[in-house]
């Protein structure tokens, strides 16, 4: 749930497809009045759904993802922006933590979940977590 558009940073080697410019995590100080106009004016990528941390002085801090160029525009418009990590670079690093090949061999290897399989005696000792609704 975001409304960001991608700025281009050139072409990738050997490809005709433009490479989007890197997005940086940007913590932007907003007020209730400026929040809507910020989203409207700057077409920011606010993640799946924006999250605003309420500050003690009545302002809030919105985490968004923006190019360096967009961050400069925000600062020029008077917004206080704290630039965090390069989210695109983080994503590239995490791509190394994606499975290679097929660990389940086309369905011949059965996946096992991370939950601990426990006897009812063990469950009773820990106390049941399933609560009525």
């Amino acid at each position, binding site marked *: *749930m975001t*409304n*960001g*558009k*991608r700025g*281009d940073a050139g072409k990738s080697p050997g490809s005709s497809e*433009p*490479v*989007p410019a890197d997005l940086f*995590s940007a913590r932007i100080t907003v007020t*209730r009045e400026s*929040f*809507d106009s910020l*989203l*409207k004016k700057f*077409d920011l*990528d606010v*993640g*799946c*759904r*924006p*999250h*605003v941390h*309420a500050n003690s002085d009545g302002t809030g801090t919105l985490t968004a*993802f923006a190019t360096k160029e967009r961050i400069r525009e925000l600062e020029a418009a008077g917004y206080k922006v704290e630039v965090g990590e390069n*989210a*695109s670079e*983080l*994503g*590239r690093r*995490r*791509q190394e*933590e*994606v*499975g*290679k090949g*097929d*660990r*389940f*061999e*086309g*369905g011949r290897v*059965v*996946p*096992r*979940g*991370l*939950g*601990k*399989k426990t*006897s009812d005696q*063990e*469950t009773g000792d*820990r106390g*049941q*977590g*399933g*609560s*009525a*609704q």
Partner: protein
Amino acid sequence: MTFLNVTEIESALTALASNYSGVTSLITLPFTTAEGRQSHALRIGGGSCPTSTILFISGAHAREWGGPDICINFAADLLEAWSLGVGLTYGGTSFTSAQIKSIIDRLEVIVFPDINPDGRNYSQTTYAMWRKNRNPASSGGQASKIGVDVNRNYDFLWDFPVSFAPAAQGAGTLASTDPASDLFHGTGPFSEAESKNVRWLFEQYPRISWFIDIHSYGGDILHAWGDDENQSSNTGMNFTNSGWNGQRGVQGDAYREYISALELSQVQATANAMSAAIGGVHGQPYAVAQGFFLPGWTTYPTSGASEDWATSRYFADPTKQSCRGYCIEFNKVHTFFPTWPEMEDIILDIDAGLINFCLGAVSKYPYVFSRCWWQQHHYEIWHKVFPPELWGPYGPWGRVTEEIESAVSTIVTPIIHAIDELMGKGGR
């Protein structure tokens, strides 16, 4: 361990369906993606007469990687624990073998872990921050305009320029008609293979009455409605009423979306129970909120989102099964890309919440009222005798029967559960 790639998600589903063939089946979704991928879902349990059907989906937004991993782990845990006749423990939250058995015996759980495989593959191999699907139909040949936001493509107030107030459109959160936007909502409701496959599941399994769409991030459990504030007094003020077009999406004005007070309280109770189960794992419960609000701050109206559409089907057509739709935003840290060890902790949290959610669906239907004939025909008979205008969600008797059902359930359910336990029926 690592994040699952799109091939592994499909192989995992195949393996689970094969290894637990007595209580599962592999569902082939009919609509292939723009890049030619065919998706699958896993049907778990149900037996010959399930009391309720639950649908979990994830992976709509490509960069929110952990969703499919949560779903595969959920299915693998549930099936293995059931086959061993044991319970499940996630950190500080535990479930007994009888609870696990009751899910398999009495519910039909459908898990559709990766509804947008093209987008996931692109995010995991090329551009990690990609969000949409990879449909080039509206791109005009420009790479920057490829893709549709699948979670703005459902048929709930999809035509936002008409349905919403200009002020709500101004903030740019609803959706977008611009293919270059990450919120591009497509060329029409259900224009995309990914959302069509979800709709197809609802059509093929018409008793789906519980639905969760798993997204990231934030640590939230969101419920209806997402278009405006809720209200429980004016049944005529609702999304089906075109007379309110142009007025939705603004807090504090005349328009608010109808949901009965009883239904809203039950929707919230279910979300709160799920949050408690999540919190029991590592001591970090999720925030429960109406989708329209950014809690403690302001509003975030949306158009064409899945949980609203799932909830709205019964409101738009009372002959359909009523359904409570939710969206989970997993990960309290503001990143799409936790390390895998961090993701493992999140999987434990959310899977405890999903198991608890299933148990809530079990408990809603006491065993004696889940006899096949009764459950299949009582609404059918009721609907034939009385017109929808009377008993539907916007009709007077709908609200009266809700109250009666609630009162009876409060008195009778504990007695029925006690009888079930005595008779060894595998109730909770």
